[in-house]
């Protein structure tokens, strides 16, 4: 019997921990999430159903620790040569169950990438921050506070803006940063965040890359306020809200990598953000395949199972095709991040751009394909009980975030065609 494991992965690129942890997360998904996920939408504020599942995954199974060095209680993925392929598989498995959880899970690593990855591992900050994640069995969430009012994802439009539009400021007073600003929509905000990575500037309006700063702010610090979560079309497991920083003070060494390097390595976060996005799409599509296969084997037209109707099979084929392709691209990109020696630095313009290329392809195909699969299911496609419409709603935001399609197109054109003014 054919399963999702029959979809191709470049064998050579799979990580050594892939098989073992892949199985563990899949079991977690099948037991803790998939049976309940259709009730998550009503749980968007309280997270009564969602929180325990997170605790098991991130706290008890310990996946929130993977990036930290082993001696600090982590798994050392940050300095491994398979951080890309290993995290791709993990995020894919979580997304198969619930894209919202995958996003909350994956984004928790974004700020940590700034300090856990070679060559910019920041030992002192790791020592300070690791315990928050490694010495608990509860899920702990981190967030990248990036987007600002009237900003959209401009800040991610790094090549052009160089941080010049950032309104959130960090002022050095003695050996402390004083941070002021207002952020919107960070994944893992809306009250659940424990640690913020704040994108800010040491001189408002500056295009000097040295002024771009990435500073860590524990959420319980005085002056940090998280607003209530927004109501959204889906993705109940991922809370988004306003965050205000008013005269927030943190030690000066809470800055991730320092002048210039904050900007440089922040682009690596974008690369991993795109890798994650592809993994979320891939995981969701694998589950859509499972669901629709089951649907078409148990529903009939002209007294034949739907999958035996050539016209419907054409749609099924296109779904398998796109899933197959997106998964291959995901592992290819994971490999590119795993082996900078072969493909270039993770923060290089080429690698960042190519991540956007694969990401916007994956999102476009997925939204269109799931729309067609829903149509094939007729009214059942909109029926909560089948969980397809959930994937459709959840994935849409993956398509929208990080600048959305148009920013991806502009960066793609800029790199491949050497455009100057886009």
């Amino acid at each position, binding site marked *: 019997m054919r399963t999702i494991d029959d979809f191709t992965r470049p064998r050579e690129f799979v990580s050594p921990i892939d098989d073992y942890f892949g199985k563990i997360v899949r079991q977690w998904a099948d037991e803790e999430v998939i049976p309940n996920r*259709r009730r998550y939408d009503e749980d968007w504020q309280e997270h009564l159903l969602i929180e325990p599942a997170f605790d098991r995954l991130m706290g008890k199974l310990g996946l929130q620790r993977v990036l930290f060095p082993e001696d600090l209680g982590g798994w050392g993925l940050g300095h491994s040569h398979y951080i890309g392929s290993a995290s791709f598989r993990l995020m894919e498995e979580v997304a198969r169950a619930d894209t919202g959880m995958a996003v909350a899970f994956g984004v928790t690593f974004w700020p940590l990438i700034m300090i856990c990855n070679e060559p910019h591992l920041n030992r002192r900050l790791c020592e300070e921050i690791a315990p928050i994640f490694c010495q608990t069995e509860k899920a702990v969430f981190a967030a990248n506070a990036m*987007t600002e009012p*009237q*900003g*959209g*994802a*401009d800040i991610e*439009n790094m090549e*052009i*803006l160089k941080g010049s*539009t950032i309104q959130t400021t960090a002022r050095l007073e003695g050996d402390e940063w004083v941070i002021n600003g207002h952020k*919107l*929509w960070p994944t893992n905000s809306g009250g659940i965040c424990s640690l913020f990575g704040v994108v800010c500037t040491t001189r408002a309006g500056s295009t000097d890359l040295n002024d771009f700063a990435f500073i860590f702010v524990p959420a319980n610090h005085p002056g940090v306020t998280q607003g209530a979560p*927004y*109501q*959204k*079309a889906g993705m109940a497991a991922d809370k*988004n809200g306003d965050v205000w920083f008013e005269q927030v003070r943190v030690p000066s060494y809470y800055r991730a990598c320092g002048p210039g390097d904050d900007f440089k390595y922040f682009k690596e976060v974008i690369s991993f953000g795109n890798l994650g996005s592809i993994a979320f799409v891939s995981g969701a599509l694998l589950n859509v395949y499972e669901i629709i296969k089951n649907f078409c084997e*148990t*529903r*009939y*037209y*002209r*007294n034949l199972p*739907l999958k035996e*109707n050539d*016209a*419907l099979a*054409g*749609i099924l084929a296109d779904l398998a095709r796109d899933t197959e392709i997106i998964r291959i691209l995901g592992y290819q990109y994971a490999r590119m991040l795993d082996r900078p020696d072969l493909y270039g630095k993770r923060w290089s313009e080429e690698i960042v751009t190519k991540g956007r290329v694969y990401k916007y392809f994956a999102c476009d195909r997925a*939204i269109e394909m799931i*729309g067609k699969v*829903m*149509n*094939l*299911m*007729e*009214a*059942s*496609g*909109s*029926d*909560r*009980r089948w969980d397809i*419409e959930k994937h*459709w*709603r959840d994935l*849409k*935001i993956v*398509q*929208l*975030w990080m600048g*959305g*399609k*148009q920013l991806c*197109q*502009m960066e793609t054109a800029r790199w491949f065609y050497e455009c100057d003014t886009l």
Partner: protein
Amino acid sequence: MDCFNLIPCSADQPHESDILLTQTLKRWAETEVMAKRLEFREDQELLIKPAIHQLFVDFEMQKLLFPEEYGGVGLNRPEVAYTLALSLEQVGRADTGIGFLFAVTFALCSSFAMDYNLNENLCRQLAPLFCHSGRRTIGSLVLPGYDSEIKPGSRTLFHGRSYPARAKQLGDKLIIEGSNLQPLNAGCDADLFGVLCLLEGSDKPALVVIPAESRGLHRSAPQTRTGLAASVNCELKLDQVEVVEANVVFRGETGWQQLLSWLYLGMSAVTVGSLFAAYEILREWGENRVIKGKNSLLKDNPLTASVMAEVSQELLIDRLLLHQLAAIMAGRGLEEPAQAKKISIAALSVVSQITNSAEKAINQAMELMGSAGYATEWNLERYWRDVKTMQLHLGSWELNKMDLAGFFYRSANL
């Protein structure tokens, strides 16, 4: 500026009465629905039900097709197609789900109250409900869907699917049996259902009108869906339900084609209206959102403008098609079988084109609005869910195409 004026809706001017009705509905949409949306979202009691009551009862929309002698408005001629198209554009702009409820109710009534198929008995039977009850009256349809098992009786298929129910004639009565019926809309609230039945001893499709309070009609628990909050649905069970013969409103393909043509025209209009709303939301966004890197408004950047232009082009194309279909249906062709077939094929093509292009257009609009497109607050995401959900209720496009192939290529056994 009224966005409806941007697109020519047809060559000849609409009737005075249609203009008045359209204006009334536009006011209703803006004051009673859109103005309250931010506060009440999709709340049944505070927003949806009152709005439905006004539309169906206060504006007399639910008695549009009933002849005057039964207390109706008496617009039961094919020319009502223009009225339906214009009015449901307005309703769809306000709330896709409410528009859908009315489109189905209208289609059901069109199967017995039109001048070419007037069923006096049934009009008399239902007039109290539609014209005199003072309460909103919702009609629903139960059409064939996929089978969840190979039914014993499924030797007789209808367009490849088995009938939702079977009817046995007993004197001047019919006894109807069926389980796991999935109504198109409002299973929980509908006042009467038009159920496509297989009549014992006949191989023709028959639509039987069954009042919701009939003994033996059982409803399951409500279902949760992606969209169309106004239509709270559930499954039905028909256990020895009894109706009089007059409730059989048609037998055979022609009645079926007429029913679908009206249903598709209505759903097309609702979708166009919803797309108008999406366009307005996007336009407002495009006029205020600054692309900082470019120091230009979204609407003034060539790339975002080109995506915005595609949204408006889809809207324009869809509206031209809607009103061309209305004009064709108003031409009285529906009355004769050959024409009815041809028109129902055109209606199927148009409603499919419109719902598919609306899905595409709203998807694009959301792309441009980023997280705002995803947040309930901006409303776009609701139209996205609603329009998609309504599209799904047309049935699978892949299988609907089999009817087109049969018509255009004489394809067999599809």
